[in-house]
């Protein structure tokens, strides 16, 4: 299954496009990501760094869950919420990469 196919669950074309863009930008962050594409979500993890983000498409939006515990979600349905979610995910990724460097 491909990320594009998972995104088809989203009815709005513009939100679907944001979903694809979000996944694409996340994938570009690191060559070390493990990417799992399931029917209802896309999970990107870098086990060595302790980074995990799960992107779940819904009918009119998609959820971005940051962290292994999925302690909080960002609901994305517009450019504004897209950049908020991407900014948070990016900051978390960089923080995890920094911590893993400190630990090694």
């Amino acid at each position, binding site marked *: 299954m491909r990320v594009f196919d998972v995104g088809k669950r989203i009815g709005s074309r513009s939100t679907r496009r944001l979903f694809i863009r979000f996944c694409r*930008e996340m994938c570009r962050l690191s060559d070390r990501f493990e990417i799992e594409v399931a029917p209802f979500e896309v999970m990107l993890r870098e086990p060595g760094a302790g980074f995990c983000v799960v992107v779940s498409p819904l009918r009119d939006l998609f959820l971005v869950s940051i962290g292994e515990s999925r302690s909080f979600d960002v609901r994305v349905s517009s450019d504004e919420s897209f*950049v908020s979610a*991407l900014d948070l995910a*990016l900051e978390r990724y*960089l923080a995890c990469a920094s911590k893993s*460097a400190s630990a*090694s």
Partner: protein
Amino acid sequence: MPERRSSRTLRDVSHLFLSQSRPVRDEARRGTACIWLAVADRSMNRAHCAAGLAAAFARQGMRVSLLEVCGSLPTIGYYFGMESAGHLSPALDRAALVSGSWNGTVRYWFSASVSSFRGRVEEEPDRAAPRAIVAAFPYPRGRSAEPFLSALRELSAVLAGGGPPEDGSPDAIIVAGGAEGIGGTGACVAGMREAFPRAAGFFVADHSVRETVAFERIVLPDDLRRSWARRMPPADPWFDDLAAGLLQVVSLRRREAVSLAAKG
């Protein structure tokens, strides 16, 4: 953590760079150093390195023009404290060109597409101050490398004073690559050397990289990654040392070229 020695500042070496000897290129290039940072793989944080180097030049009184062609996040906008809508613009629009300034000394532009810069970057207005032009980019693979480097050279020429494209050729090239992408790093070094045989070449990598390449190797400190998440340019003394070293090499090479030209 081992204590790092205090860095040699650019002031200590600027007498070399700002010497009164006649430069090889035209007057517009006097006091201008053009440095290209080519990143060979994604294990290196291009924006972090570029922002740190630009800030190191700026800390010592140089005016800096910084270009980043950003194939992936983060962008330099993240490290210069831009709002999320600004530093993430290329994620929404690959052709978007974002610009800004930092501390009144660094002017920067970034876009995912090199063609977006055309006609939209301009020379540093303060010609009296020593200037650094820093261009950071992911090294393009295959046939796209040549037109990409040519376009980047034209942009550097505009920033250097609007001269012919040759004026945009880099004085020094830094290739940054990690252990995971050593094949790509080798291709990057070879491609840059072929395109700009006269430029000084440096290869920046962490300790894990054992392979040797034609460029002079500089080891990236392990603890540099600790500042990856901070939304400000890294201020590690390593960047000051790197900037000082680059200026020394550029200055000495220009002196040598002037000397050779004088001998006929």
